[in-house]
């Protein structure tokens, strides 16, 4: 029971933190330069990792789909199915897991260190709002760059799928690309990128909150980093399901009964 109460407590606190963040963002906008700085930092740091992860996720999906479809002689659909499957479901989730390890851990460690070494209190002492000066730029930076990075990872996954389709299933790249539009529709692409955006917001909120509320010295920072990664992943899978479900519902509505 205690665990459950604690979990609900944390969810509530994170939501309140998110609300405060949004309020600050609109009432007292941060400096544009700070946001650009953060975005640039995060993107530069994580681009190679994300691109590599994306490539291999695409490759894995291509191999798996090939094995399933070979028996049906439906390899022509490989390009479409592998791309659509990666873009709508597996790609965003796995790449976001990756990012939560990289960006999330880094940010919460940085903010946590600032908190336990009382730099955040120092900012407040100087009459500045730490939310406005420190948190909102990081939050926006992570949201923008994670959306970009996830998008880039998804593009790389198409490349990975294409390469492996060629090497493993002997589907030539032209053939692979030609069949993408038969399965992959615009709504699917939109859902994929909407998922990326949602994941980016989840990731940014949790890691800034965890870092900002770290207590208890170096050990506390370590704890904050680990809980960031774990709670981010849990929220990501839940949001993955929620977005899929909502997308399905919206599609059903749009298609009519």
């Amino acid at each position, binding site marked *: 029971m205690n665990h459950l109460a604690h979990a609900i407590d944390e969810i509530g606190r994170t939501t309140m933190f998110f609300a405060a963040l949004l309020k600050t963002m609109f009432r007292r906008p941060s400096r544009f330069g700070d946001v650009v700085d953060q975005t640039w930092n995060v993107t530069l740091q994580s681009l190679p*990792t994300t691109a*590599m*992860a994306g490539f*291999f*996720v695409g*490759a*894995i999906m291509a*191999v*798996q789909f*090939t*094995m*399933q479809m070979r028996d049906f002689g*439906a390899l022509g*659909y490989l390009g*479409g*199915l592998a791309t*659509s*499957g990666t873009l*709508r*479901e*597996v790609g965003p*989730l*796995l790449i976001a*897991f*990756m990012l*939560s*390890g*990289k960006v999330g*851990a*880094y940010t919460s*460690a940085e903010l946590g*260190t600032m908190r336990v070494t009382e730099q955040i209190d120092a900012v407040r002492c100087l009459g500045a709002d730490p939310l406005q000066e420190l948190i909102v730029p990081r939050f926006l930076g992570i949201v923008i760059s994670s959306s970009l990075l996830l998008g880039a990872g998804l593009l790389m996954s198409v490349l990975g799928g294409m390469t492996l389709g060629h090497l*493993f299933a002997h589907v030539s790249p032209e053939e692979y690309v030609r069949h993408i539009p038969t*399965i992959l529709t615009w709504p699917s692409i939109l859902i994929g990128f909407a998922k990326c955006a949602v994941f980016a917001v989840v990731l940014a909120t949790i890691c800034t909150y965890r870092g900002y509320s770290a207590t208890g010295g*170096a050990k506390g*920072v*370590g704890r904050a*980093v*680990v809980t960031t*990664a*774990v709670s981010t*992943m*849990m929220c990501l*899978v*839940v949001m*993955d*399901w929620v977005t*899929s*479900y909502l997308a*399905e519902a919206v599609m059903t509505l749009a298609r009519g009964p």
Partner: protein
Amino acid sequence: MKSLRWKETLQQLFFVANGSGFIVVFCVCFAAMVTILEASFHMKMVIQNDSMVPGFAALLILKELGAVVTALLLTSRVGAGIAAEVGLMKVTEQIDALRMLGIEPVRYLVLPRLVACVIGAVLLTLIANMVCLICAMLVSDLMLGYSPAMFLSSMRIFVKFQDLLLAAVKGAFFGAVIPLVACHFGFRCRPGAEGVGSATTQSVVVASILIIVLDFVLSYTFSYL
């Protein structure tokens, strides 16, 4: 075998398996739901009905999702924990102290964690696969209208016992990667609190990438079996 510290190994196993059990099960349940929903979407598109969803989804769960999701969760929980612990020992010169006492730090620290992680990861992967399949069964019963019996019989056509074994093998490989990477970065940790932080972050990133790459290599290899 004698040099293995059994008590420490069991403690680590408890930390790895028992501590992560709930998170793994929770995450895998949701992953299963999404898999079923998406598989049904694709099936309807390609062959106009979704009668083969259970089989395909079960195959995807067993071959990829169960093992990879479990491993990535373990990385961020267990891997980060080990890296921080070993890094802190390095920074506070406990590892040098061990060496002074004539104790091999690798055998003393790494071996129990390696053994515990491999066993824990295999167990968790198997549990995750089972939970994932049961959850998929529930979702396809509630949302797509396939009764559990239909799910199982459709699954039997696609899934072989071999698949479960291969998933366990994958789990063992991923379980070995996590403590090795974490201990590597822990042993090379730079002094200070910042060093421990960056060792932790780096170990999580490198381990996750290695897991994804290794997953690709293993899937590719298994496809020839």
